[in-house]
Every structure is written in C-alpha cells, then in structure tokens.
C-alpha cells in the first residue's frame, strides 16, 4: 500500500537525542526513517518521549546530539518554511476570538498568501473535515470533537506533505475518538499524506497505522518497529476481527516489555 522504495525519506533521524540542561535525558539516540505516504504511530506509556520526538520532527526543538534531515536536506532549505508540514496538538488550540474560517486560514495568512487563495484553501480544508457549513461559527459554539476537526483542517490548509499529530483525540470520548480515527484514516488514504501520530492507545495505533514505533521510557527510546501490513480501508469490521486482536496483543506485549524495566525497576 504505502510501502515501496522512496527517493528520499520524508524525515531521516540519525542518532538524534535530547537532554535538557538540568540533566534530564528525554531521548536516547534514535535512528528512524519516515517514508513518504506511511502512517507512522509513536506508541508508548506517558513520559517515554513520544512528544519530544514529535517536537524534534516538527523542528520545534533542536536535538542536543545527532541530526534530522527533512526531505533529504536541511529543514530551512526545504520549500517554504513551515508550509510542508501541519501540526495537530493534544488540545484543539484554536483562537477563541476568531471564527472557524479565520482559524483554519491562519497558517496561510502567516505565510503571506493572498486573501482569496487563503480563503479557498480554508474552505477546501474545512470541506475535507466536513465542517464547511460551520465556517462562520466561533470555536466555543462547537463541540470538542468538532473543534478537533477544525484543528485538523487548519493543519491541512497548507496542503502539507507531512502531518504531525500529538495525541489529537486523547481528550475525546471513545465514540467520538473512533469516528475521528475513521475519518482520519480515510483522509490519509485520499490525500496520500505522510502522518506521524502520537498516542498511548494500542487500539488506535493498530487501527490507523502502517507502522508502529513502540517506545520505552527513561530515557525515551524506540524499542520496536512493527509494520501493521493489514489492507486498507480498515472499517469497523477490522476493529472486531481476530487479526486486530492479535495485533493489539503483540503491541501490548511490547509495551509491557518496554515498561518492565522502568515502571517497576524492582522487578527487573
């Protein structure tokens, strides 16, 4: 599906690590390649450095050792800065004073795109998440799930090649989360996106991903790189299939193994 040899990986992480001046070691040196068109999930318990790794990939923080290369080059030298990747936070992170459309077009406005083009981009992105008719609403008038979809539309507005998502549905109820997972999977397939998705939900990881990087804590590191090569589209039938259950078990065991030495050090 989304496999196959690519010219250059979207992101190549080579021995990248992160320590803070106070001595906290957030990430041990990590080698990871993110290939075009794949849906990679970073899975692990809280405090295993998933978000730190995502922030490194986003270029929000700099590695304290090693290097990252985006699209085979230096990030600053690649295309219009900030326009090739979209970021979705844990919370919707919308500007409450701006209408939905103004929120979605923000990245385009900040990049200096002209008004008409930005409006078209925002409307197109809102249509993709099914919220076109809410363009004139304020965020507070929408439900939590709808706000999250606005947040995704904002990330899509720049037509990114790489979509980074930091536990975007973690705060939503289970039903909304499943629906949005389904919508995200459809969007990923339709748009040919490359997605890096952070979650601590094993079910979500299995349902969405083409590949799962299982992470362990203290220091954060990737302990297993598991391809989920089940066919797409994966509907609700997949969620209750034995394959799904087997995949979940497999990941569950890996996560437990990752946590064994850290959460209960006395048992190791």
């Amino acid at each position, binding site marked *: 599906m989304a496999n196959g040899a690519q010219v250059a990986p979207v992101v190549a992480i080579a021995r990248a690590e992160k320590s803070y001046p106070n001595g906290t070691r957030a990430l041990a040196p990590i080698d990871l390649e993110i290939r075009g068109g794949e849906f990679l999930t970073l899975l692990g318990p809280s405090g295993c450095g998933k978000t730190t790794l995502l922030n490194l990939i*986003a*270029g*929000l923080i700099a590695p304290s050792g090693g290097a990252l290369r985006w699209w085979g080059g230096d990030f600053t030298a690649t295309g219009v*800065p*900030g326009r090739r*990747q979209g*970021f979705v*936070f*844990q*919370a919707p*992170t919308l*500007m*409450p*004073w*701006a209408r939905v459309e103004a929120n979605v077009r*923000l*990245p385009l*406005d*900040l*990049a200096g795109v002209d008004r008409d083009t930005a409006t078209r981009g925002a409307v197109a992105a809102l249509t993709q998440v099914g919220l076109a008719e809410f363009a004139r609403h*304020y*965020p*507070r008038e929408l439900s939590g799930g709808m706000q999250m979809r606005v947040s995704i539309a904002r990330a899509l507005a720049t037509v990114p090649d790489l979509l980074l998502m930091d536990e975007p549905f973690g705060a939503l109820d289970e039903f909304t989360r499943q629906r949005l997972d389904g919508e995200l999977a459809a969007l990923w397939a339709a748009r040919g996106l490359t997605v890096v998705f952070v979650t601590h939900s094993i079910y979500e990881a299995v349902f969405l991903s083409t590949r799962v990087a299982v992470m362990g804590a203290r220091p954060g590191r990737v302990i297993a790189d598991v391809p989920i090569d089940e066919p797409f589209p994966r509907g609700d039938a997949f969620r209750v299939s034995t394959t799904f259950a087997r995949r979940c078990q497999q990941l569950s065991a890996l996560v437990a193994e990752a946590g064994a030495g850290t959460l209960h050090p006395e048992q190791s």
Partner: protein
Amino acid sequence: MMDNDAPSRMLRVAAPALIAVLLLAAWQGLVVAYDVPKYIVPSPLVVLQTLIADRALLADALFVTLGIALTALAIATVVGTLVALLFVQSRWIEMSLFPYAVLLQVTPIVAIAPLIIIWVKDTRIALILCAVVVAIFPIIANTTLGLRSVDHGLLNLFRMCRASRWQVLLRLRIPGALPYFFGGLRIASGLALIGAVVAEFVAGTGGQGAGLAYQILLAGMQLNIPRLFAALFLIAAAGIALFAATVWLSHAVLSSWHESEAAAPG
C-alpha cells in the same frame, strides 16, 4: 438571587429601581416626619428642586469634571497600553520599570496632587495629570498580564509557521489580552473620576471652569447643603454612566467569543 435561574432583563432593571424608590421614599418620609432642617439633611425632593434650579451652574461643573475624567481616562488607556506593550518586550524592561508603576499606584493622590498643581501651571492640565496617575495602574497591570497570558500551544503554532514578532503581537497577544484590558478599563474608568474629583478638591480653584468638586467645597462652606447633595448626586451618576459605558464597550467587543461576556444580557 439564584445563580441557575438567570433573572430576566426587566427584573435586572426593575429590582434595583424598586430599591431606589423605597430608599428615597424612606428618606423623604423621615426628613418630613422629624422636620429635619434642609441645611442638615435635605429631602430628595429638595435636592431635585436644587438640581433643576441650579441646572446651568451644575451642568457646567459636570461637564468640566467629566471632561477632565474622560481626557485622563483616554490618556491613561493609551499610555498604559503602550507601557504594557513595552513591558512584554522583555523581562528586563518590566523588572526595571514595574516598581515605579507600583510606586505611582501606592502613593496617595492627595499627597502628590499639591506638587503637581504647583509644578504644572495650567490647572486643567494639572488636574488631568492627577487623574491619569490614579487611573493608569490597572490598565498597565491588566494589559501586561493579558499580553503575557498567551496560550502556549498557539504560540508554538505561530512559531511553527515562522510568524514574525509583529504577527504574534497583532494576531495573538493583543486579541488574547482584550478581556484583561477591558477588566482594567472598567476599574480605571471609576478611578479617573475619583482622581479628577480629588485633585480638584486639592486645587480648590474656582471661577471659570470650576468642576463638581469645587461646587461641593463651595456649597459646604456656604452651608448650601441641598446644592452639595445635588453635586454629589451628579458625581455618582457620572461614575455609574462611565462604568456602564465601559461595560457596554467590553460586551460589544467580547460577547461573540469570550466566556465572561457570553452569558451577560445583550
């Protein structure tokens, strides 16, 4: 009043109005019943008669005081906002200058008003200056807090989009600071009036361009207590009107998106 049962708009006006009518009626009744001389406590009706009889004098005084208070409020708003914008440019600037803003706030205006009046030749400008000194602090403090209270996630988003400092200020910090700013403005509107009145008491200038405070001072010396009450009434009314205007302005700007205004009556 129960919190979960929001009173209707009519009740919000009717309830305080009823209290006012009851209090005025009691006041009138007591003054008449005990035959209190009007140079000690005038009845509400006598105050009303004085308001009408002295309307030219009192209206002039009201306009002078209101003019000073409004000018001071405008200056405090502009200067206070600029100072807040300066403060958020760097912690160093704020650390160095904030104590002086506090100094301005904690020094009683009655203590520094005589100095200002001596130093500034034009009395009107001196009075405006006094009122600005009183009114500016809440604007500085609230706006600075608002400009700093930026959603961290949104700040990250702006950074990821390579937004300039200017874009962050205009599109993120300033809109986000508006609810705080209006909170400060609400307090400052009352303080500007207090500052204007107190400064005028200290200055004690009469003749042309005398404000309500001077009328109170003069009426007190002449034992014209009904006029004193009438002037007092006008100051209170002006204060309420100023406050109401800032509440209305805040509602007009924020009601579409901010929780503090969303539930308020339209």
